[in-house]
């Protein structure tokens, strides 16, 4: 999850970000498990019948999905035992494992049986998100829909800080949440889908509240210059302006006709 400040782990006085968020005794507050991103459901084009959710946490998104699409069967994958235990009360099935360790046949998830795959702010936490996408592809129906959200590394806030303060500072929450180990701009995400055997059908931008006004004021201009302290960007197109003002992208993709290369 790209956690909000409210859902970040509680940091005791004098505790560093890595102490609070990494390691065996790192704890996630309850709020972390209650939030979900409704844009992942809004972007779907068809009602899901059998959904597979990677990183289902405590099942908040799945619960919302079941409310919106009655009758949908949801299988979740979650590594955190506490979250998985709560998710079991809401999903049809929860596989408590790392995705690379799951034997889907043994779990009763048949090839081609999944019509909707969801990964909400999960891929940026994985060492090899590329193989994850390749790995789930055989489970998907030929016309399956994937809804994936990713934080945006081309966000203006990251670079305003890097170039004015000289710091890439990991935090307990947000775009540089210390549990994020992979970074993507829009083009990188599109390339990831292409390389792993998917066609991207739609992209929505979750605007960063910090830059929402900047975006509104400049969105209609053919060419925009941005300046944050010593950091200046010239001649940006409207889609680029939007990318700089975006906190997170939400993608809708579908398996490409061409199978992915064997990994």
């Amino acid at each position, binding site marked *: 999850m790209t956690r909000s400040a409210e859902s970040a782990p509680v940091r005791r006085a004098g505790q*560093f970000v890595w102490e609070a968020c990494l390691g065996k005794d790192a704890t996630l507050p309850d709020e972390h498990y209650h939030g979900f991103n409704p844009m992942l459901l809004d972007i779907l084009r068809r009602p899901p019948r059998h959904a597979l959710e990677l990183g289902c946490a405590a099942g908040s998104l799945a619960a919302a999905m079941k409310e919106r699409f009655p009758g949908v069967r949801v299988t979740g994958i979650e590594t955190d035992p506490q979250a998985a235990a709560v998710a079991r009360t809401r999903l049809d099935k929860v596989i408590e494992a790392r995705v690379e360790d799951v034997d889907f046949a043994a779990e009763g998830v048949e090839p081609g049986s999944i019509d909707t795959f969801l990964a909400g702010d999960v891929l940026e936490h994985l060492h090899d998100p590329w193989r994850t996408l390749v790995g789930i592809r055989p489970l998907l129906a030929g016309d399956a829909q994937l809804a994936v959200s990713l934080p945006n590394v081309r966000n203006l806030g990251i670079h305003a800080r*890097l170039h004015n303060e000289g710091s*890439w500072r990991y935090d307990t929450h947000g775009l540089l949440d210390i549990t994020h180990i*992979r970074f993507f*701009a829009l083009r*990188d995400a599109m390339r990831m889908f292409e390389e792993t055997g998917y066609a991207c059908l739609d992209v929505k931008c979750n605007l960063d509240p910090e830059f929402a006004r900047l975006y509104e004021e400049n969105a209609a201009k053919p060419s925009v210059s941005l300046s944050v302290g*010593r*950091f200046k*960007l010239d001649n940006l197109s409207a889609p680029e302006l939007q990318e700089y003002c975006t906190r997170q992208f939400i993608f809708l993709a579908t398996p490409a006709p061409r199978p992915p*290369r064997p990994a």
Partner: protein
Amino acid sequence: MTGDTAQTSELAPGQTVWEHCLGTGVAPNPLYYNSFNATLREVLARAPRRILELGCSAGKLGEFIREKYPGTFHVGIEMNAEAAALARTRLSQVIEARLEDIDFAAEGIAPGSIDTFIAGDVLEHLYDPWRALVRVRPLLSDDAQIAVSVPNVRNLMIVGQLHNEGNWRYTPAGLLDVTHIRFFALRDVFQMMDETGYRVADVKSNIDARYAELYSANRGKPNVTVQVGRVKLENLSEADLLEYCTLQFIVLAHPKARAANDPQAA
């Protein structure tokens, strides 16, 4: 490693970076076995006697250090079996494991027995480099030196590529080597050292060959503006300019004095 090895680490036709570099069965680039960062030896403030090296690869840096400082006892930690086997022919001792799994007492490495710790282009590959630094601290003598190199995320190539082309593009080698999962600007390196119990004594910059000319043409000027395509960085100090032209930082640090109530103090 963050060398200029990109051109020699070639993808097969049609192969992607992640296919080439990640996953089980992917052997590390053998070029890395023979390359090492000579600056890690040059940054040392004193002659090392007992060295612990995290990510010793095939042991070439150890060999290089011993040429200048004969008689050093050099323990390497390396998780790749092939590299570790080669390192055994060059180092005093090689522990083939991940750092977090090592029982140092069982390996015969007593608390306070290491006077030099080296981590050359290794921390950026770890999920928790902070705890790695905390974990080795009890092994170090109070006046130990640590030499650490890390790639620089505030480098102009990264800046230009992201803002002009819109790419944060992982590559088989270099700054955005796809095996890098942690990123640091110079301030972040200082912060990491401070938070994990070390004070920085010296920093050397390995200048990025692509920007060596830019740096030498502008150093000494009070306020420099650097333009890379549509990106402009204004009012840079000489230190800022150096950072943008740096491929990699090489940091020398020492353990901070232990607090009186620290059980390790005795």
